[in-house]
């Protein structure tokens, strides 16, 4: 009984840390994005609130809390309120299976850095990731706004078509590691990161992941130039910021998953001796991946919607199927 209580406390503490890390991460990802974009675009960016503008996210959050919340007269209220929640929750829980380090010794207990290690972690990731599309579709549908409707429709079509490639890109690390547990996959990358074995799978994964989180150049559902703000056109105040939060937390989450699957997760030099370096290495990898996303946003124009679908179905999907096939054949033939 004694141990059970300790385990419970451990989980609660780790969950709290994880949620806080994600919320802070969300706030500072927006800041990171604004500063990096500004740097790329020969501007300065927010630098007035606190030293180097570090308090900017706090100010933004405070502002959003005090904003008026509007609900359109003809909106389907229940769904309208439910939609942002449905977007945020998956983004929060998806990180549960991603390990952030090895095990450390604390209060005489072995504590694994990572909330949980389930043996079907990959299936968990896939299923949770696809829930968030409901939030977007429902938001678009319940707003009673044509732009929102179109944004919602676009996003459901886009996410469905890119999820296939994403799923197939997941298969490659599974084949290489021979396990669906993320810890096993990280262990399998002890020598060489999978990105070096499988650059194509990593590329497909990264592209599909951009589409999955609606980042440029796949930011179709909220294509500002055409659909004003897409599915969240009618949202304001905290409900809007929940969508915002969901998007940015998903960015962090998929970056962490990308790092886990292809960049060796929390592994790095001396991580076996000093397990606390694990979260730091993971943080660095996520930081770089986020930077790449922001860089892409600052650089590339948006694809047109029909070309985007064509790209997903005609190029990305065959490519990933071929890649999985070739990998599987090689593994079987050479018995790796």
């Amino acid at each position, binding site marked *: 009984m004694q141990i059970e209580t300790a385990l419970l406390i451990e989980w609660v503490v780790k969950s709290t840390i994880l949620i806080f890390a994600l919320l802070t991460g969300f706030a500072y990802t927006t800041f990171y994005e604004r500063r990096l974009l500004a740097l790329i675009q020969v501007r300065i960016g927010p630098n007035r609130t606190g030293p180097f503008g570090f308090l900017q996210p706090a100010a933004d959050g405070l502002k959003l809390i005090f904003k008026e919340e509007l609900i359109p007269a003809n909106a389907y209220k229940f769904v309208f309120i439910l939609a942002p929640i449905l977007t945020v929750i998956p983004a929060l829980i998806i990180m549960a299976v991603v390990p952030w380090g090895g095990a450390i010794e604390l209060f005489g207990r072995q504590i694994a850095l990572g909330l949980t290690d389930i043996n079907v972690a990959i299936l968990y990731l896939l299923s949770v990731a696809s829930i968030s599309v409901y939030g977007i579709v429902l938001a678009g549908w319940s707003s009673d706004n044509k732009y929102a409707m179109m944004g919602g429709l676009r996003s459901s079509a886009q996410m469905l078509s890119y999820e296939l490639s994403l799923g197939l890109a997941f298969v490659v690390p599974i084949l290489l590691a021979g396990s669906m547990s993320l810890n096993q996959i990280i262990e399998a990358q002890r020598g060489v990161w999978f990105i070096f074995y499988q650059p194509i799978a990593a590329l497909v994964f990264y592209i599909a992941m951009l589409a999955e989180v609606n980042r440029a150049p796949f930011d179709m559902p909220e294509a*500002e*130039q055409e659909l004003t703000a897409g599915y969240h056109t009618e949202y304001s105040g905290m409900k809007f910021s929940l969508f915002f939060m969901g998007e940015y937390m998903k960015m962090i989450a998929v970056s962490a998953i990308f790092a886990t699957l292809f960049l060796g997760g929390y592994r790095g030099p001396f991580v076996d001796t000093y397990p606390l370096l694990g979260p730091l290495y993971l943080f660095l990898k996520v930081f770089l991946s986020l930077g790449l996303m922001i860089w892409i946003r600052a650089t590339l124009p948006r694809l047109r*919607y029909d070309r985007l679908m064509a790209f997903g179905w005609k190029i990305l999907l065959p490519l990933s199927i071929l890649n999985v096939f070739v990998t599987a054949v090689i593994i079987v033939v050479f018995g790796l």
Partner: protein
Amino acid sequence: MRFSALKRDERAGYEGHIVPASSLLEVAKALRDEDGFDLLSSVTAVDYLTDNEEEESFFEVVYHLYKSTGGGAEVLRVQVPRENPVVPSLVELYPGADFQEREAWDLMGIKFEGHPDLRRILMWEGFAGHPLRKDWKEVYFEEEAKPFGNRWPGGQVYRVEDQNPYGKNNQYPDGFDPESWVETEDPLLYENLEKAAREYTEDIDTEQVVVNLGPQHPSTHGVFRMAVRLDGETIVALKPVMGYLHRNHEKIGERNTYIMNMPFTDRLDYLASMSNNFGYALAVEKLMGDKVAPPERAEYLRVIMAELTRISNHLWAIGFLLNDLGAFFTPALYAIEERELILDIFEATAGSRMMCNYFRFGGVARDLPAGILPRMKDLVNERLPRKIDELDLYLSENELVRSRGEGVGIITPEDAIAFSATGPVLRASGVPYDIRRADPYSIYDRFKFDVAVRYHGDVYDRYMIRVDEMRQSLRILKQALKDLPEGEILTGHNPYQVRVPAGEAYGRVEGPKGELGYYIVSNGKPSPWRYHVRAPSFINLTILEKMCVGQKVADVVVNLGSIDIVLGEVDR
């Protein structure tokens, strides 16, 4: 002229021919098909209202026709009585007359018989009367012409609304209730949209949706609205709606004295105020004759400023076209960085970055300040060529830019001419028509430059033509800066009031967005009797509907961006 119906205009200071309304179509058809006057530049109307019992009051509809191969104008006039003014519509022959005839109907009340969609275009539906008629008085009308009388009689402040002779003459048309009227349910607009949609047939029977893109929309470049019917993501019908920024520029211009209009033209296309000044100065100088011929140095300064304006405008246009493509502000901000350097020069010379108010009749307002010439030379010879090459290098071959631009929004050369498109829009369709060459003004005939032309007429070519034009402008600038002579910058002194003899003039320049024309009628008084602006971005919009139908929603935004409009000029 072959037609017996044609009568040479005998009035002093006028040119062209007077055509009876009944034979207008016949004459226009012959001029277009046989004499090659295929480009209808401007359609406008003048109200010749007179108090004199012996003279007759009438409306005159004025058409300026040009050849797309270059040369001077053929001016046609149709005179109609002020009661029931009806003129046959030229839309069948020149589709480019569409918006201009609607404007003449809206502001002057000329009925164009046979126009397919004769609705108000700049004013709203709840507006009574036609404001450009000389007997129309606005709400709180004060006096016919500026400068208004002393507003402080005896040092006492009084309220204008207590003094005006017409009171609060705010009216609505018959049967119009402003309280119940909803703009998005405007029956006239949607009936037309419906009509256009009926001609579109699809195999799959799907429900079409009407979406109003705008007036508050991030990529209409201002308060511009497009009512579109969508079948899925495909545009079935599109109607542009404008006038949200309308301030009746022309009516105000007819109250102003001639020189007061100079800063007022800055506000038309606020990104290219120097070009606006240029056109207006040319028109008034044409009326005033040789006594205001600008001195050499002023001519050079005019050309330098106009070409710098063209570069800064195209930098802006390209930047924001890329933005419309979804490139998140990066190209726009890099382009704006260069534009700022040009604006620095304007600020040093004219005193203002955007509202330059630099031209005067017979020259320019100020000479270059000390030390600015080396900076201009450095900019033109060193920095800008490098930066334009850089822009070209990074953007032109970009896979996404090409795939979004090539084959999108194609305008054939025939259509471009028929729809009166001018400027980059026309030249990107393979028509090498540039007023600087076709009908040279100022000293453009002295410079070596090529008329940039591209042949596909799609969005990508309309982007590329702007890059080409910037390079040609740099060529002109290099020559002009090298040859810039010393000397006077203004003929005579800088007058507060100019005397303009009676007559008419049409001054046009190749503005960055197209042919910018000013049609001015003077009756010898201190203010113009008629002051009409042929706004290129307004008339280039005529072809928007044709460009967009059958394409995707995302392309509409790009098509609009590739026309490059400024709402200050569209709505005037």
